């Protein structure tokens, strides 16, 4: 079986100094040196109300899983694009929170793809800024999926950093190789879910190209920050560039909401 996990080095997260062979040493070193995935726990960190935040992401996850189980028509519903109208509305935070929430599902693996080429916030948080990433894979035919896919300290969560910045980044994301990349992810493991953290719609054009590959689009809005005109305009751009968008493919998330607006009313304090 040519599964997704076979491309990864057989290194346990808590056993980072173990060396298997030369190729794995390189990956091992990469992971050991930069792949500290502890920051992904920032969403679930004690800086926030853990129980409530966890439950809120569970609510989001249930909606997405329900859509996945509802069946796909053409596009892979397991490829989820997280975007917003303008920067700073919490796309990376929602991406990390969703990943940690999906991690709790049995037989479910999550691949975090940093497609935000402007800020690369996800890559920076995972401390993979200097490693090979998505743009390197798209630009070089010789690179394989395993070269840009990194295991993290959290079982079941893998990361694809943004890679070295390039001027041709938007064109690379719009190229057919991006579709090939997502196809490889799908065929390697059917239980895995790819979550792409992209740029905001109104700040760059490649988000629309990425939305064309996504089976589900999660549009993040921030309370008190997102302007209705910008959200409306961003939705219009996605609708025109990524095909017809209906409520089965796109959904909104209100970030930075008050506790009173949370669907979780009686969460435990810890």
């Amino acid at each position, binding site marked *: 079986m040519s599964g997704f996990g076979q491309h990864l080095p057989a290194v346990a*997260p808590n056993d980072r100094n173990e060396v298997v062979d030369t190729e794995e040493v390189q990956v091992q070193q990469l992971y050991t040196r930069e792949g500290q995935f*502890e920051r992904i*726990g*920032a969403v*679930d*960190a*004690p*800086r*926030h*109300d853990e129980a*409530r*935040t966890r439950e*809120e*992401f569970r*609510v*989001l996850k249930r*909606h*997405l899983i329900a859509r996945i189980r509802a069946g796909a028509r053409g596009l892979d519903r397991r490829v989820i694009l997280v975007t917003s109208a303008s920067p700073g509305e*919490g796309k990376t*935070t*929602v991406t990390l*929170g969703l990943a*940690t929430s999906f*991690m*709790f599902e049995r037989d479910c693996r999550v691949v975090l793809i940093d497609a935000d080429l402007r800020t690369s916030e996800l890559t920076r948080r995972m401390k993979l800024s200097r490693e090979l990433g998505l743009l390197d894979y798209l630009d070089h035919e010789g690179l394989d999926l395993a070269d840009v896919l990194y295991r993290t*300290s*959290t*079982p*079941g969560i893998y990361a694809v950093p943004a890679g070295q910045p390039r001027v041709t980044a938007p064109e690379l994301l719009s190229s057919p190789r991006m579709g090939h990349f997502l196809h490889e992810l799908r065929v390697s493991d059917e239980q895995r879910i790819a979550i792409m953290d992209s740029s905001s719609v109104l700040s760059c054009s490649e988000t629309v190209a990425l939305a064309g590959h996504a089976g589900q689009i999660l*549009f993040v*809005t921030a*309370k*008190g*920050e*997102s*302007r*209705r*005109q910008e*959200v*409306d305009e961003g*939705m219009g751009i996605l609708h025109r560039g990524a095909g017809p968008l209906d*409520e089965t493919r*796109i*959904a*909104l*998330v*209100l*970030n*930075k*909401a*008050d*506790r*009173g*607006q*949370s*669907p979780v009313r009686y969460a435990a*304090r*810890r």
Partner: protein
Amino acid sequence: MIGQILDRLTDEVRRIWCYRWLVAAVTATLTAAAVAFTFIAPNIYEAWGQLYVSRQTPLSAAAESVSLADLRSSNTYVVQKTLLNDDNLEAVARALEPRRRFTKLELASATTGLKKSVHLVDGGDGFVEIHYTNTDPHRAQAVVQLILNQFMSGSYERSQQDLRLAGAFLDQQISFYGDLISQSQAKIATIRRRWGVIAPDAGGDAAIAPAQPQERAPAELIQLPPPSPPARSGAAERASQLEAKLASLLAVDTEQHPDVVAARRQLEEARAQSKTEVAEIVAAAPLAKPPPAPRRRLKVRRHPAPPPEAAAELAELQRKDEPLRTSYQQLVAKRAAAQMSQAVSGADRAGKFLVTREPARPTVPVGPKRKLYLGVGLLAALGGGLGAGYLRALMRGIMVSPREIEEVIQLPVIGTVSFERAWRTRPPFSGAYDSAHPSTRRQRRLRVNVPIGKAS
């Protein structure tokens, strides 16, 4: 319904809360401005004087029904209108700064300022208080004093001037009517001299009444008794009386009044009777034999019989003579009343107005009401801050709730992510750090980033 309204209100509060720092900044700025204004504003002093506006003085009571001055209109409104006119206030403004040369604009500005600052208060029972507020107590006192002085002198002079004008007008009218009566008497005398009109004497005997020329002006009637009416027929005299009565009635009543109608009917009858009598006299004149007269009268030259035109003119003159005399007498009586009124006004020195309280220099400020201003300023600052925040939120068009997003975008909001700081739920850390202490261990367990994989 109520739930929807509350939801909307909550959304609006959230909208303002998103700009809480702007609200706080604007509120703080406005509060500082209000506090500064409240405590920097100078003290305001109020000086006041009191007038007693008499409705009836002893002299005016004595002159009641004789005096022409209106003694019933002395109220606050009249005082205000007569006191706060531009002339008085300009005089006050000039008196306040005697060395300054005012331009028209400056004078108008000073007058307007005085008019705004002077307030009249009706104290009841004829008392009127004049209040003036200013930051300078000396000026406040001076202004009230000047206004009182100006008002008193102006009121007296105005009253005297009015009475003088009334006297002059009455003198002119008396002279005019005197001339009319003189002309009428002269014509009657001329007719009598020429035609020797027979008038019935007291004994009923007809005699030739020699006409007496009346050249002198009847102005002497003020001192002299009114001249005896000329001899005439009974109907003509009655007609004259009725005309005078009708004129006096018309001065009071309208044409439709029953007395006026009756008087007019009687006048018509009297005129008709007078004409009949005159015609009979004229017709019987050539046939009538004069009674035997004493010798002295035989020496009198006999006049030819008057023609009907002369008789009619004489009757007309006699008819008009009586109303003229009546009007003349009325004018003379009014002139006497005017003189008496002038004497009354001059004797009690504008006795309608009396200064009952001279303005004193105020020592205790009456304003500004700093506590009130401070409270109102704080409320206004808070309102301004909230308004600024709300306006800012509306201008940016932010969205604050899933319901609002769904209404605008027409797509479902499948969830929310709330940010809550951990210190709200974390027990406070106190005391020295002791890793062995149970509370420290509990806090560490809370704070440490537990790998999610282990947690599961």
